[in-house]
C-alpha cells in the first residue's frame, strides 16, 4: 500500500485528482488511531495528513481555534488548556479501548469520528462545535464550509455533515472549532447499589432537575470488576455505581451537589467526590475503561448503542442478561457501551432488532477484522434514508474515492 504524505491543500487536491484518474480509492488517515473502527476498506493508497499540523490561529477571546486537520489532538488540547479552555463535547480517546498507542490522534480524526464524551448531554457533540472547515471533495476541489464565528447561518450547514462522516465525504485540511471556558470546579454525586432500571430513573430525575447536570453514568458491578483505578476503587464488584456530575464555579457546583443529593434521597445516601478525583472517574467512563484492550474483556466485541435515554436501563439490562454480556451507561442512559462474549456475528441481528424497537442505533466499535467484514459496523438504515445518505455521499464524492466502504458494506460504496 502506498502512503502519500501531503504537505498542503494543493497536495491533497492533486492526490484526489490522481486517484480519480487512476480509479484508485484513497484511505484518509489523521494519525490512524481509529483505523480499527469501521468497515474494512477497499483502498490501496493512504493519504497521510499528519504533516498538516499547524495551529493557524487561536483566539481565546473569540472562543475559537483554527487548526490544520492533521494537528495532534494532544497538542491542541494542551494549548487550549493553557488558557483554561476546552472542547466542551469531551472528545473520547479511543486508545484504551482499541489498544492503540496512547497520545496519538489528530483533530481531523476527532471530527471524522465525532465521538463525544459524557458532557454531550449538556454541551452537544463534535457537530455542535465545528464552525468551519476547508476540505477537498471527491471532485478533487478545495471548498470551504461555514465560517470563523460562533453564529452563522450563511448557506447550508455543511460542517454538520463533515462531523461524524468518517472521511467519506471530503478530506478536511483545516478546521475552526468552538472552544469553551473550562469549569472552575466539579463535584460528582456517587450513588451505590442501584440496579440498571432504578439508576436510569435516578439519572432521568437528575436531568429533569434545574441543577444543570453535565454527566450522568451508571456502571453495574460487572463493569467495575473489569476495571482498575479510578472506577474500580470507587466501587466494588458487588455494588454498582451511579455518577452525576455538576460543574461550574465552586460555590455553585457544591450547592447543586447538595440540592441534587437531597432531591435524589429516595435512591439512597450519596457521597460526593471532587475535582481531580471526579475528573479521573469521568475520563475513565469517556474512554470506555471497563472494556480496555489491556483488560479481561480484550477479546469481547464492543458495541456503542445510542438510544432514547429513558429506555436505556431496561434495554441494557435485558441485553446483558440474554447475551451473557456486560453493559454500562453514559448520557443518562442514552449511550450504552456493551461488551458481548465472542460469537459468530457479535450478536448483531438480535441486538439490532432490540435497538430498532426502542428507536436507537448501534455501531460495532471494536471487533476483529473478520467480524467487521461479516456484519454491518454502522447501523443499517431504513431504505429511503439510506438512499438519501448515498446521494449525499455522491454529491461530494461521486466515484467513491474517499474511504470507500468505510461507513457501509456492499458494492454500492
Amino acid at each position: 500500500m502506498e502512503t502519500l504524505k501531503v504537505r498542503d491543500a494543493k497536495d491533497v487536491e492533486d492526490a484526489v485528482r490522481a486517484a480519480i484518474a487512476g480509479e484508485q480509492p484513497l484511505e484518509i488517515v489523521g494519525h490512524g488511531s481509529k483505523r480499527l473502527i469501521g468497515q474494512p476498506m477497499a483502498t490501496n493508497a493512504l493519504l497521510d495528513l499528519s504533516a498538516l499540523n499547524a495551529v493557524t490561529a487561536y483566539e481565546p477571546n473569540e472562543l475559537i481555534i483554527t487548526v490544520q486537520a492533521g494537528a495532534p489532538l494532544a497538542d491542541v488540547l494542551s494549548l487550549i488548556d493553557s488558557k483554561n479552555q476546552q472542547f466542551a463535547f469531551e472528545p473520547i480517546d479511543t486508545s484504551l479501548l482499541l489498544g492503540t498507542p496512547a497520545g496519538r490522534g489528530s483533530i481531523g480524526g476527532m471530527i471524522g469520528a465525532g465521538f463525544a464524551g459524557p458532557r454531550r448531554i449538556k454541551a452537544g457533540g463534535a457537530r455542535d462545535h465545528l464552525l468551519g472547515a476547508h476540505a477537498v471533495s471527491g471532485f478533487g476541489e478545495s471548498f470551504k464550509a461555514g465560517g470563523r464565528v460562533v453564529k452563522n447561518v450563511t448557506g447550508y450547514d455543511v460542517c454538520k455533515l463533515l462531523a461524524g462522516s468518517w472521511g467519506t465525504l471530503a478530506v478536511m485540511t483545516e478546521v475552526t472549532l468552538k472552544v469553551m471556558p473550562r469549569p472552575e470546579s466539579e463535584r460528582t454525586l456517587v450513588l451505590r447499589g442501584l440496579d440498571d432500571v432504578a439508576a436510569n430513573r435516578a439519572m432521568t430525575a437528575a436531568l429533569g432537575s434545574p441543577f444543570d447536570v453535565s454527566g450522568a453514568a451508571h456502571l453495574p458491578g460487572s463493569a467495575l470488576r473489569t476495571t482498575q483505578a479510578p472506577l474500580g476503587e470507587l466501587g466494588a464488584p458487588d455494588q454498582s455505581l451511579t455518577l452525576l456530575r455538576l460543574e461550574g464555579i465552586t460555590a455553585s457546583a457544591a450547592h447543586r451537589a447538595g440540592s441534587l443529593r437531597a432531591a435524589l434521597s429516595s435512591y439512597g445516601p450519596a457521597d460526593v467526590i471532587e475535582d481531580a478525583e471526579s475528573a479521573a472517574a469521568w475520563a475513565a467512563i469517556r474512554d470506555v475503561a471497563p472494556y480496555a484492550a489491556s483488560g479481561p474483556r480484550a477479546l469481547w466485541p464492543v458495541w456503542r448503542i445510542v438510544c432514547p435515554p429513558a429506555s436505556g436501563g431496561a434495554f441494557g439490562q435485558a441485553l446483558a442478561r440474554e447475551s451473557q454480556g456486560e453493559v454500562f451507561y453514559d448520557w443518562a442512559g442514552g449511550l450504552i457501551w456493551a461488551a458481548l462474549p465472542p460469537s459468530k456475528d457479535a450478536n448483531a441481528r438480535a441486538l439490532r432488532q432490540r435497538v430498532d424497537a426502542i428507536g436507537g442505533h448501534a455501531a460495532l466499535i471494536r471487533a476483529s477484522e473478520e467480524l467487521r467484514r461479516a456484519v454491518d459496523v454502522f447501523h443499517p438504515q431504513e431504505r429511503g434514508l439510506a438512499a438519501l445518505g448515498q446521494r449525499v455521499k455522491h454529491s461530494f464524492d461521486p466515484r467513491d474515492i474517499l474511504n470507500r466502504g468505510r461507513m457501509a458494506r456492499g458494492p454500492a460504496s
Partner: protein
Amino acid sequence: MTILMPEPDQAVLARRGEIVAALRKIVPGEGVIDSAAEMVPYESDGLMAYRQPPMVVVLPDTTAQVAKVLRYCHDNGIKVVPRGSGTSLSGGALPLADGVLLGLGKFKRIREIDFDNRAVVVEPGVTNLAISQAVDHAGFYYAPDPSSQIACSIGGNIAENSGGVHCLKYGMTTNNVLGCEIVLITGEIIRVGGKSAETSGYDLMGIITGSEGLLGVITEVTVRILQKPETARALMVGFADVEAAGKCVADVISAGIIPGGMEMMDKPAIHAAEAFVHANYPLDVEALLIIELDGPSVEVDELIQRVEAIARGCGSTTCQISTSEKERLLFWSGRKAAFPAVGRISPDYLCMDGTIPRAQLPLVLRRMKEMSAKYGLGVANVFHAGDGNLHPLILYDANKPGEMDAAEAFGADILRLCVEVGGVLTGEHGVGIEKRDLMPEMFSDIDLNQQQRLKCAFDANGLLNPGKVFPTLHNCAELGRMHVHGGKLAFPDIPRF
C-alpha cells in the same frame, strides 16, 4: 427592488386552472386558495418590501396530503415554496408567480410531550412559544427564543436555524433539535433522528436545519427541552463609548463567564427604545449592555459581582443590577421592543444580520458611521454582542425616491464589511433573497457548487424554493459532471513512504 427572481414558466401558468383542480382533489375544501384577494396575506413575509402573489396557495393538514401535493408538483414540473408563519426577514417565504405556496399553518398539534426523554414532538406549524408554554408547568422550556417567538413556527425555525438572545449559552435551533419527518419533492417521506442524542449515518438533521425550505418540507419535529434555570438576574451597564462596551464583552468572555444573554444597543437604539417603552435606560451613554446571568442563586449572585467588577474596570458610567423579576423584565423590555421602537422613529427600516469577530466591533461601528454619512441614512444598532451578531437597523423612507435603493446598498456594504473583517453575511435570519446576491462575497464558485450538489441529492430538478439562497442556478447534471485532470501518472510529486 434589485433582486431578480427566476423567469416564470409560462407553460405552467397556462395550466393554472388544471393545477388548481388537481390540488383540490388532494386537499379538499378550503385548503386550496386561488382568489387574488384571499392570496394577499401570502404575498410577502417579514421582508415586506418584496411582494409577489403566488400561483396558488395550498394548506394541507396531513403528511399524506403534503406528500401527494409534492409528488404532483414534481411530476408536473411545478415549483413549490414552503411557508410557516411568514416572519422570515430575508424573504425565504416570498412566493413565486408560477409556484405553489405550501403553507404549514394547519399543522398545529403538539403530538407528544416526553418529559423522561426531555423531548417534545410537534407539528411544524406550532409556534416557538407554544412549545415552551406546553411544558412550562413542569419547569421545562424550549431554549431558542427568537424575538418573533409568539408568531414564528417551529418548522420555520428549523428551516432558518433561528437564534435568539439566549443562544450564546444554549445554542441555536440546530443545537436543540433531535429529529424530524421531512417530505422530499418526490413525495417520499423520510424520518431522520428521533429521541436519541445522535442520528445514525450522516447528520442529515444538521443539514436540513438551516436549509431555508430548499431541501424538503418538514412535517414533524422533535425538539429537546431543558429544565428552566433556578433564577436569572440582569445587569444594565452604560458606557461613554462603544469601544469600552466592546472591551467589557470580551473581558467577560475571557474571564470564563458565558452569560445567558449579553446584548448591546447604541445611542440611537437606546433613545428609540426608551421613548417607546420607558425602561429607564440612561440617555447620556453611547452604548448600553444588558447582561443576564442564570442558574442557581449562589452562582448568579457571585457572577453578577464578577461581571460588575469587569464592567467597572472597563470604565462603565452607569450600572444597575436587577433586584426583582419585574426589574429584570423591565431591563429587557426596551431591547425586546427595539425593532418596533425603531419603526416608530422611521417610516421604514431594513434589519441587517451579519456576524463579526467580537474584537472587530469598534472598527465596524466606526465604518458604519462613515457609511451612514455617505448614504445620508440613519442607523440604529442592536447586537447579540456575546456572539458578535449585529442587527444594524437602517432607517429610510420608501416613499422618498431612491431611499430604498440607498438603504439596500448601505446594507450590502455593511455585510461586505462583516465578511471583510472575518465574519459572515447572516447570523440567524438566513440568506433568502435578501443576501442571495452577496453569497459570492463569502463563497467561491466551487464552494457554492458543492452546496448546490447537496441540493441535488434532495431535489434533482430544483423545484423547491428556487431563487432563494443561491445567486445562480445550475442544473444537477452539469454540477455532477466530473472534470478529470491529470494524466496516467498516479499521485505525482507528493512525498511517499
